[in-house]
């Protein structure tokens, strides 16, 4: 039996082209549906210091809270449900848990609590759930998804009590948890935070100025200059500060810039890390559109949003897993005439992005 080494790990890439001015463009719903965003990186060609408006938008991203060893039944607390979940949207994700190894918890803004459990925990918990879509041979991972805003899960109801007793007395699930609330911020979460060991965090911003780099020529959005795979590879190399020169003396990287290419004298790469809300990303996109409206040397900008690798859900509540890599990201390449290319990429164990 010969080994087929040509097979690369399965991944999915969806590319879309549209314009912000087009009323059928789905960009806002696509951004909204990716609830848990870990990192946003922006690449601005021919840009020196960070523009002040961009800086202020980045600095105004909402802060998020980290609770250490939160018992998950606390998310079913009546007061927390009334003040935070029913009003506005709560974004919560278990932290320092691996989705392919252990139990993960996600609280989505539409009030859905999603638990991704391994077989033992699921059998101990005793609540209805479905086997994961990515099981192989034997069922080893189960997903329990409950809608906390549904009438059957109202506090005191049968479904609510069953889940509460399961989490409180049978399973004892406790993980670190990152939490954010829109639009209330920390105030609505205070009742939950005050009972545990919590800390507030601001998203971490880092700037990186690149000089003398080759870049694929992207004059307008109509020209099919380079295919999405090579463009995304180049973009990733820029973000990771990997050289694309492929000089014969260097063995570290053989990545090349896709043809046709031009040379940029400088570029700015800014990235923000943390639990980022889709609303903040919307504002960033609007700010970048304003930036591009003014005449520039290079008339494009790119924004890449990475989702959490260890989140049990990705776009719109679809199940997410890790086979060899759990990437779920999208790249928005914007041009000055309000047109854009959107590339949505996921790994093997993921649902199709919208």
């Amino acid at each position, binding site marked *: 039996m010969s*080994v087929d080494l040509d097979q690369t790990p399965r991944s999915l890439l969806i590319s879309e082209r549209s314009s912000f001015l087009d009323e059928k463009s789905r960009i806002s719903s696509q951004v909204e549906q990716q609830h848990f965003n870990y990192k946003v990186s922006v690449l601005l060609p021919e840009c020196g210091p960070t523009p002040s408006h961009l800086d202020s938008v980045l600095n105004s991203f909402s802060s998020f809270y980290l609770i250490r060893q939160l018992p998950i039944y606390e998310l079913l607390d009546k007061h927390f449900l009334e003040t935070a979940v029913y009003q506005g949207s709560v974004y919560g994700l278990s932290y320092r848990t691996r989705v*392919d*190894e252990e139990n993960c918890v996600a609280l989505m803004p539409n009030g859905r609590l999603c638990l991704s459990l391994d077989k033992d925990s699921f059998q*101990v918990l005793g609540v209805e759930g479905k086997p994961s879509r990515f099981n192989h041979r034997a069922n080893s*991972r189960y997903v329990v998804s409950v809608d906390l805003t549904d009438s059957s899960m109202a506090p005191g109801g049968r479904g609510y009590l069953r889940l509460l007793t399961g989490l409180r007395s049978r399973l004892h699930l406790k993980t670190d948890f990152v939490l954010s609330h829109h639009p209330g911020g920390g105030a609505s979460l205070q009742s939950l935070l005050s009972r545990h060991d919590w800390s507030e965090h601001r998203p971490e911003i880092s700037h990186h100025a690149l000089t003398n780099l080759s870049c694929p020529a992207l004059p307008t959005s109509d020209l099919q200059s380079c295919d999405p795979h090579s463009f995304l590879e180049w973009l990733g190399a820029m973000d990771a500060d990997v050289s694309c020169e492929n000089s014969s003396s260097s063995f570290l990287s053989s990545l090349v810039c896709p043809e046709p290419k031009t040379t940029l004298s400088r570029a700015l790469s800014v990235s923000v890390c943390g639990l980022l809300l889709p609303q903040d990303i919307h504002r960033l996109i609007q700010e970048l559109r304003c930036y591009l409206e003014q005449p520039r040397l290079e008339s494009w900008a790119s924004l890449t949003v990475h989702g959490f690798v260890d989140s049990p859900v990705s776009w719109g509540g679809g199940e997410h897993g890790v086979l060899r890599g759990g990437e779920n990201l999208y790249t928005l390449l914007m041009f000055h005439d309000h047109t854009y290319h959107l590339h949505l990429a996921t790994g093997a164990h993921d649902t199709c992005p919208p």
Partner: protein
Amino acid sequence: MSVFMDLNLSFTAERSRLRSLIETAAHLGFSTVAINYVHEPTTKKKQEVPTPTPINELIDQLPIVQGRSRPIRVLNRLTVVMSESSYFRPADPAYRSFDLLAISPATEKLFHAACMSYDIDIICVPVTEKLPFTLKRAPVNGAVDRGVVFEVSYSAAIRDSTMRRYTIANANSLMESCKGKGVILSSAAEKALELRGPYDLTNLGLLFGLSDKDAKEAVSSTCRSVLLHAESRRTANGIIYTTKSCSDSSCQQEAPDSELCDAPAAKRLRPPPRVTDS
């Protein structure tokens, strides 16, 4: 999927080396490791089965696994290198102090016996030499049905290029017989540098002929099923196990959770109905 495990870390008498092995394994992301004591009995002189050193003597503070918030779990394992059938004595009380039992058979007859009848958890596939016997489908499937897994260790492949060829060739012939089920990948690492991370092992599994998902299972779910098999092997009928209490005298009986064992609950024997003459 379950947590990543490496069930073969060679035991060395040097405490510092063993400690660095365990720390490297925790750093790479393995949540459970097993320290392997190799017992190679020969006809010439009688050798005692090694006793495992308690974990708290080896290392004071178990390191936290990278990316999680729990410390690494360390188990003990015994590998008996068998060239004759009399070398494996399952009734030996020294075997009971080990969590996992493994056999490394040298002949075809022993391999067949190990697959079909011996009370063990792991069968080691030789990787340092050309396979001395062919791995036929019948005993391999019999072993997989019983819950016994086959182990392929990779650190020999790291040390030497000839071993690399043997490892890949032997692993490929194993995969032809077992179709990727019931295989675990582990290092037989003697030094911390010979350990590789779990996702790297998933890639290595592709070279051995496993599919993507099978290779990932070989490092996680199959190892978990080996541990459950070992726990139920040490019980009676999968329900009760006995442990010697710390005090000198008797044994205590404890019933662990029956969820841990995959065997169904044993029915109580009813006394035979009395026959009366009338």
